[in-house]
């Protein structure tokens, strides 16, 4: 299955999908030292986004969240790529400064947690390979 979306930030990555239907607030919602989602009541609460292809509809919360993505990357616990339904400023800026491949305008409801995804940021392409 191949989806053609839109390039937000270039780069290629491969990893296991971690999918949520809820928005993510990186500032305050994700522990920057461990990559674990800490937002109360979030679908992903307690799960680590480290090394995953993180799939969520859109970002929310404080603009400081862009720096949280950068901090995750520096700590080695960032997602390998991000796929959104609709990207917004916080996630986009975070991916660019942290250099995390990011693609949006993908039908994320068709992506399942645990599936192996191949991301081609340059082409805005998301491929489910297993």
């Amino acid at each position: 299955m191949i989806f053609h979306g839109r390039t937000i930030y270039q780069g290629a990555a491969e990893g296991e999908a971690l999918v949520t239907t809820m928005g993510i607030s990186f500032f305050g919602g994700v522990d920057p030292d461990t990559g674990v989602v800490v937002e109360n009541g979030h679908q992903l609460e307690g799960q680590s986004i480290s090394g995953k292809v993180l799939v969520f509809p859109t970002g929310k919360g404080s603009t400081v969240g862009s720096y949280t993505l950068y901090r995750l990357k520096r700590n080695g616990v960032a997602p390998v790529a991000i796929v959104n339904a609709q990207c917004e400023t916080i996630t986009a800026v975070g991916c660019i400064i942290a250099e995390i491949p990011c693609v949006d305008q993908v039908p994320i409801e068709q992506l399942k947690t645990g599936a192996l995804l191949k991301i081609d940021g340059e082409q805005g392409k998301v491929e489910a390979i297993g």
Partner: protein
Amino acid sequence: MKLTPKQQDMLDGTHGRATQKAMEILVALGTIYGAERMVPVTSVQVAGVSYDNLGEAGLHWLSEMADGGGKTRVLTTLNPAGMDIENWQALGISEDFARQQLRVIDAFARMNVVTTCSCTPYLIGNSPHYGQHIAWSESSAVCYANSVIGARSNREGGPSALAAALTGVTPEYGMHLAENRRPGVTIHVEARLPDNNDFGALGVVIGKRLEQFKEKPIAYITGIDQASVEQLKSFSASVATYGGAAMFHMRGVTPEADRFSPPDETIVITQADLDQAQQSLISAETDEADFVSLGCPHLTLNEIARIAELLEGKRVTKEFWITTARPIKQMADRMGYTHVIEATGAKFAADTCCVVAPIKGRFNALITDSAKACYYASGKNKFKTIIMPFDEVVLAALE
């Protein structure tokens, strides 16, 4: 997006690593929000300055941008830092924090950002005029600039504002386009608004109403004949904090209001609504308060003169921070206000404010005239809050 040859060069890295990163940010935002091109900006205000918010990662990124040769191309000023740059010891800031904060300021200075450290750039020389495109972060200043000045800015984050500074442009979408500045709902105010805290409470009421719309409209406010700079800065801060508003129109007060007639959909705000909003910001008794702060947003010289008048010859009994921009404090120094105020035991905290200073948990309850300060005091710093009129706040510091 359609880029000019020079903008394309920036994106390709011809102008250095930092400028390239900046242009990558702007192109991505332009793509997301459907901008067709970049527009030149005349002014930038960068938020994300306090080390308390940035942390080591934020500092590292800013240092990388400075190392990468980033230099501002337009007048660029800074939001408040986490401490008074000259007088941090008196405010109980740790040496370790001060060292890191100064590294942040140094990174900005290396990029030729003017290190004003204030949320009211429009009071201290970063004053765009009507119709100019600007790229500001700091939500209260964005709302003030769009509404009161009629300049045009989206609600930028720290990195996107810095990106505009390093390239001199911003993608043309949102508030930069005339059609997006049209009001969507009339808000008729039937309440008395004598003081800053009343305008703050009005911002809470209107902000929360706007949040209930599926697509947030711009408010067209009627029923207020006049408002001072202080009241408008208070209202801008509040409606931006509680409603994420980038702009409002106020008939008879703001310059673009006359371009439009009031939208048919109308919400009436009563005195009871306002009183209820004030009450919602009071979570302690006055005698529980151990912290008093004025200056959210940063105080005008007028306000400082009033504090001096009220405090002269007396002693404060609580920790009292007066937060303002350094140049305003320097005028207060010259006028003798600073001397009068400091003799009472009250403290100036220039360059910073009680929203961004590292004071979480340090106090029990805050007395302020600012609805925005209440929001961050309770959420971020875990203080109880009490809101009251400006003069009463000053007098409460004496009790």
